């Protein structure tokens, strides 16, 4: 599900905020060819097929192998030309004309032209193919229309104005028609380019191509000799000869491998491991970067689903509290967000009022501050809403039943479990008996998405882009990730207004009006507390010293987004030996 959200890259009609400056500066410098970059992945990619991939590890590999028409620069958050040399959007916002670069070749040497673009989008829009990101290519219920003008010009047409503009094209891989037309016509496109694919069967327009894939061990990419990008001196990119991905399932093991110098780049570091690495950083072998709050928000939500006919009576009874606005406000006020940031993330996190963190400078409504912690105010709210306390200090509802509930979260995430324990103690102060139950990740998703057999849950979601559109599936009342109430229409007037505002901003072409609408959405969320937003943690990454052009960004993929520009400043000592030895 997180992967799906990460997929939800979308619109922003103005340039985004500047990303936090990394030590290496903001402009790429001219590098030198050669060398190999070793990176750990949490799992092996589920698929090497852009049509079928849904998981983040697959994206990490695929986005190095394939290219899109227009690309969002992860650091500036602006769009920049990729396979498209230029584009223009019509006055009414319904038509985008894209002019392609000439003379490009796929990694297998075959030429690229407008037919490949037409083929790719035809495949993505074909419902029988089941492309997971198809929804993003459907505007106002109508799939994108494509028209070929000549071998290097394509026109995209939409049924209604689309505020997303050219950001729509980001990360949508252009496929080689000469390799995939056959499988597509035979109806077996989703099955090709799986884990057993030979490197020679796969071709892309990205900076690297597949060299070797040993399932459960490693995947090696080598430079694509036909890649189109050149640096300021006219040298053909990428600089690196190879990227080797090792499959290292645990975060701790990844940190250890990075610390020992076995891998060259690490991202998604936990604050704990960052602190451990920081203590050793004086060895001068690597540098660490705290990029500030990312686009992941951790939040607590109550089960507000319609439970009719599900035999979950005890949860249904508790929903009387959960759906009480004053109850949710009281819980929100009782939570010590500063303590969450300091205890669960060693201070490398920021308290949240809504789902928009300060990592999103452009779209955040800065007028909203996180609720100040006040158990007095929380008690007043509860008393006003008909709750009372018995002699032991337990909170009772209007019917005299003691208030207690259970928070589930995934046991694999130590930070969420710790946040749960802090909240447990905070709410004990209000007389609420809270249980914290860490369970297996998939078991938790099953409860949240299907069986609805839970009372409250702590989860984190990542926005794929700064743009509001990337969160549409969370905030529309019928959205697939509207976690606290899945399926069904708006529950109240507030949700109705959010639905309306979100639909309006989608077709609004004036950035200022769009921003005003999204500001209002955040106000409603802060006021009606549909979920209790906790903290947004910093993006923490590291790289070996000597890796040039390393410019990490808060957007995915934070360290490898500019893999074509990365280079080794000096030949690595022992790099030759390591390049031939099989990674352990």
């Amino acid at each position, binding site marked *: 599900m997180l992967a799906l959200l990460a997929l939800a890259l979308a619109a922003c009609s103005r340039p985004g905020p500047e990303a936090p400056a990394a030590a290496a500066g903001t402009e790429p410098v001219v590098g030198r060819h050669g060398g190999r970059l070793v990176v750990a992945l949490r799992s092996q990619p589920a698929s090497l097929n852009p049509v079928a991939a849904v998981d983040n590890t697959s994206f990490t590999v695929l986005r190095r192998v394939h290219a899109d028409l227009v690309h969002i620069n992860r650091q500036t958050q602006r769009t920049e030309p990729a396979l498209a040399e230029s584009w223009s959007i019509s006055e009414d916002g319904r038509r985008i004309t894209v002019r392609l670069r000439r003379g490009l070749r796929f990694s297998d040497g075959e030429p690229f032209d407008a037919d490949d673009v037409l083929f790719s989008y035809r495949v993505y829009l074909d419902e029988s193919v089941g492309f997971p990101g198809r929804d993003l290519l459907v505007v106002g219920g109508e799939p994108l229309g494509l028209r070929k003008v000549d071998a290097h010009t394509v026109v995209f047409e939409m049924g209604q104005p689309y505020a997303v503009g050219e950001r729509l094209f980001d990360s949508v891989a252009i496929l080689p028609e000469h390799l995939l037309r056959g499988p597509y016509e035979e109806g077996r496109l989703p099955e090709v380019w799986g884990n057993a694919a030979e490197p020679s069967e796969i071709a892309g327009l990205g900076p690297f191509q597949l060299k070797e894939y040993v399932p459960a061990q490693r995947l090696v990419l080598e430079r694509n000799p036909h890649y189109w990008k050149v640096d300021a001196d006219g040298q053909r990119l990428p600089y690196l000869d190879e990227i080797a991905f090792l499959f290292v399932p645990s975060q*701790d093991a990844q940190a250890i491998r990075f610390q020992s110098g076995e891998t060259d780049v690490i991202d998604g570091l936990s604050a704990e*491991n960052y602190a451990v690495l920081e203590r050793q950083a004086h060895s001068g072998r690597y540098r660490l970067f705290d990029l500030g709050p990312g686009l992941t928000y951790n939040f607590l939500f109550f089960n507000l689903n319609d439970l009719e006919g599900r035999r979950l009576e005890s949860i249904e009874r508790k929903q009387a509290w959960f759906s009480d606005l004053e109850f949710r406000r009281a819980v929100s006020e009782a939570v010590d967000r500063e303590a969450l940031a300091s205890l669960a993330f060693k201070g490398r996190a920021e308290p949240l009022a809504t789902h928009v963190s300060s990592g999103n400078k452009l779209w955040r409504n800065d007028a909203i501050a996180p609720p100040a912690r006040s158990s007095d105010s929380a008690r007043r709210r509860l008393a006003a809403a008909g709750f009372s306390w018995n002699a032991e200090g337990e909170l009772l509802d209007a019917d005299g039943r003691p208030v207690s509930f259970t928070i589930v979260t995934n046991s694999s995430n130590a930070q969420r479990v710790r946040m749960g324990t802090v909240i447990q103690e905070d709410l004990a102060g209000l007389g609420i008996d809270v249980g914290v139950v860490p369970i297996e990740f998939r078991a938790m998703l099953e409860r949240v998405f299907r069986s609805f057999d839970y009372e409250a849950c702590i989860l984190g979601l990542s926005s794929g882009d700064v743009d509001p559109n990337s969160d549409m599936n969370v905030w529309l009342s019928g959205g697939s990730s509207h976690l606290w109430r899945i399926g069904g229409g708006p529950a109240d007037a507030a949700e109705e207004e959010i639905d309306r505002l979100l639909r309006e901003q989608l077709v609004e072409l004036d950035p200022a009006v769009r921003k005003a609408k999204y500001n209002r959405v955040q106000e409603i969320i802060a006021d009606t507390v549909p979920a209790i937003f906790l903290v947004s943690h910093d993006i923490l990454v590291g790289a070996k010293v000597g890796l040039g052009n390393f410019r990490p960004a808060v957007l995915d993929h934070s360290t490898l987004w500019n893999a074509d520009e990365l280079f080794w400043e000096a030949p690595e000592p022992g790099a030759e030996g390591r390049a031939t030895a099989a990674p352990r």
Partner: protein
Amino acid sequence: MPSTRASGPSSRRRKRRRFDAAALLIAAHVLVLLAGPLAPYHPAAQHREAPWAPPTRIHFFDAGGGFHPRPFVYARTAVPGAADEYVEDRGRAFPIRFFVRGEPYALGPWTFERRLFGVEAPARIFLLGTDGLGRDQLARLLHGGRVSLFAGLLAAAVALSLGTLLGSLSGFYGGRVDALLMRMTELVMVLPWLYLLLAVRAFLPLELPPLRAFVLVVTVIGLIGWAPPARLFRGVALSAREREYVQAARGFGAGDRYLLVRHILPQVRTLALTQAAILAPRYILAEVTLSFLGLGIGEPVPSWGNLLAELQHYSVLASYWWMAAPAVALVGVFLLYQRVASGLAPDATIELH
């Protein structure tokens, strides 16, 4: 293991060793029972200003070099910008006081406030440091020991009672009873108990109150653990049945019940004691494993298993050595049990697993 009865000075030494070890074990159990008064803080109290604080230093000499007969501590404050570094504020000494008033705790049916020792706020005394939420590790170790040690002991009691009863019956009666019971032990023994527990846990409500979780853990371990001792006792009962004095008693018209209580059970008594010394640590480990996997006692109630679970994280292992205290305690208790068991061993034939 030697199966002959030992005698002479070596036997006396062994007996003394056994006695020492048993005394220490009992002391450990008393200590954890007295967790309330012994620990200066409640095990779930979060001192949020002091996460991952190392053990508090106890001083006799102040910053100026002056000697204080009464030991004291300094208040500590976090180093700004570092989440887990602290400096002592040498401005004021806080002497350690005994029998101080603290957060109330329950001991049996009564509630008390006096704790063995403590210091005045804002200073804190964490003899074993704190965990990531600023909770006193000493309090958690002691309270956690309650859960883990007694879960092991009770589970062993359940398993042994069942094992003794069913094993003796099986060996005494033989025939169909024996065949049925022994097939049952085989069935229980081939079950992959960890997966069974996972399955059992999945059927229960998500959240169990600590007491029910404790009872559940003890029951499940006991119910799965009865089979091996039952087989052992069956053998003893089988051989006892054929002894001449038993045959003679039967010849004089003694009933089954008389024979069982008078002649068979005394035979297995010493063996049961040795088995208890062997099984208890294994069941302690079973509880620790369950809690480590999050299937035992849940937060905020500590057990040695969920305390050890913190050590799974590389950062904890690499940075906070005091978090390993439960592991040290666990190893100590195991060694004591081992000593008791090997002290008992010469009295009977036993099989060490």
